[in-house]
């Protein structure tokens, strides 16, 4: 379970009511009822987060070229499966079991332990073990999804999945243990409610090192170094993907209340839903206005990135801000993404879907923005968390990418890249009846 000290304010409040107001009209529900509602929240919100995998798949399928569509779809359903498997094999226990400060337990094969509940003994804020495992598992899949969009259209399938395996089995759980496992950053007071840093920046850092080591797609830069845009094949699909992510985010942030067994928890979850929605709204409108001013036209793909950036920005603290503040936090994310995309392009870092801009840049901003509304958070501690997790992921992911590069190789051959990975890796096309792929 995530550390109570970090973001279980609602549960603490409900426990207080249980202790001091047993006869009051709004008396807390009994332990079993709370257990049921808490588990229900993990399951339903977790299912919403699982659906974000569909959002990433559609967003990425829309922003790649036609010739790589089937491959990106396959990578998305495969990475979700790899992430789930590794979180069962080692990930969950590394992140949450007996965390000693820097790492949990290397105990393979997670198993559910509901012995107390089955005997009728319910801890405050209790929930069924598998509901928690499921909810935490879908988060690691999200981190892996972020990587696939950035390295799309040129990475080989199996080396990519090998990277995902290490990311989800080792890299993500170890840094996760530092905060949600109750490790050293949690002790220090680092605050990251649903994972602006722990999930989105981690995916973003891994995407960044991958995109740098892999190099840009053929044709992305002209001989004199100018950026040559490679428009996506299907913007309606990209839009659908963004809406799916937006929907899934209510589970991502809402479920991170980690409880539904008291009025306080329900109120907090409702506030989180409202703030999450309005941050995305701020991100969309700010990105639209920024592209209109800068380029005299609105760029749909930037508006989509703006929605994601707004959502990532509010993820570090979706409970405390007022609605107005949530809009501003999201809007700043939306503006940042519009400047970050051409910035990374100029650095010759070819990020097909803008994942680094939307998840890493907005993730850093969102983690810093916690200090605006959470009196307990300090800038120094937030920066410490961002930098230490960033350094850890940069070093470990770079090592894994390089190891793969110099053993099995990570980049598709030039011929395969020109012909499209669908034909090279899958031997089929996403749209075989719509003429030759470009």
């Amino acid at each position: 379970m995530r550390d109570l000290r970090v973001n279980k304010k609602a549960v603490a409040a409900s426990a207080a009511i249980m202790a001091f107001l047993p006869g009051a009209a709004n008396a807390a529900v009994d332990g079993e009822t709370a257990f049921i509602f808490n588990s229900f929240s993990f399951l339903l919100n977790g299912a919403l987060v699982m659906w974000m995998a569909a959002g990433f798949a559609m967003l990425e399928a829309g922003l790649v070229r036609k010739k790589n569509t089937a491959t990106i779809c396959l990578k998305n359903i495969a990475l979700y499966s790899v992430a789930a498997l590794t979180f069962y094999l080692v990930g969950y226990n590394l992140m949450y079991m007996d965390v000693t400060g820097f790492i949990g337990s290397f105990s393979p094969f997670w198993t559910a332990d509901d012995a107390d509940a089955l005997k009728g003994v319910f801890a405050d804020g209790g929930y069924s073990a598998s509901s928690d495992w499921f909810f935490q598992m879908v988060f690691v899949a999200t981190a892996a999804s972020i990587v696939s969009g950035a390295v799309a259209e040129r990475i080989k399938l199996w080396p990519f999945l090998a990277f995902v395996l290490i990311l989800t089995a080792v890299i993500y759980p170890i840094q996760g243990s530092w905060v949600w496992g109750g490790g050293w950053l949690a002790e220090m007071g680092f605050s990251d409610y649903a994972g602006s840093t722990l999930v989105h920046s981690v995916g973003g850092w891994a995407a960044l090192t991958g995109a740098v080591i892999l190099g840009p797609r053929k044709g992305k830069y002209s001989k004199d170094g100018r950026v040559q845009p490679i428009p996506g094949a299907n913007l309606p699909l990209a839009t659908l993907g963004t809406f799916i992510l937006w929907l899934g985010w209510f589970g991502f942030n809402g479920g991170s209340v980690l409880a539904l067994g008291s009025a306080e928890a329900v109120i907090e979850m409702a506030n989180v839903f409202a703030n999450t929605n309005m941050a995305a709204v701020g991100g969309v409108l700010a990105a639209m206005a920024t592209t209109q001013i800068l380029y005299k036209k609105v760029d749909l793909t930037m508006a989509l990135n703006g929605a994601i950036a707004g959502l990532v920005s509010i993820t570090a603290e979706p409970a405390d801000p007022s609605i107005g503040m949530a809009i501003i936090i999201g809007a700043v994310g939306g503006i940042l993404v519009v400047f970050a995309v051409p910035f990374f392009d100029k650095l010759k870092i070819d990020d097909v879907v803008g994942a680094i801009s939307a998840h890493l840049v907005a993730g850093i901003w969102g983690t810093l923005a916690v200090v605006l509304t959470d009196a307990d958070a300090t800038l120094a501690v937030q920066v410490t968390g961002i930098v230490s997790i960033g350094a850890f992921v940069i070093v470990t992911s770079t090592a894994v990418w390089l190891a793969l590069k110099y053993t099995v190789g990570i980049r598709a051959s030039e011929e395969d890249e020109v012909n499209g990975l669908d034909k090279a890796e899958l031997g089929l096309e996403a749209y075989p009846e719509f003429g030759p792929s470009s």
Partner: protein
Amino acid sequence: MKLVMAIIKPFKLDDVRDALTAIGIDGLTATEVKGFGRQKGHTEIYRGAEYAISFLPKIKIELAVKSDMAEQVVETIMTTAKTGQIGDGKIFVYDLNNVVRIRTGETDADAL
């Protein structure tokens, strides 16, 4: 016999077909094509970077006619496909040597 080939704006295809049918033409072939002329291309912005659209979408129509019809066909295409804006297209007229209708084996004027 003449083969009239014209490059026109895509949204004018139905107007041109109707006008040609009205003067007795009962067959043409239309193809989606891309090209550039005096209109050149234009630039668009995608995710903060400019890129050139060098080839614009057009429709190519081809129809075989008796020589005495050619002038009227050209005139009809010109008046119906014209918007007055740059990029309206061009009409080309070729001499046509042989025509065969595959189903019956009829040739030349009988096959038109």
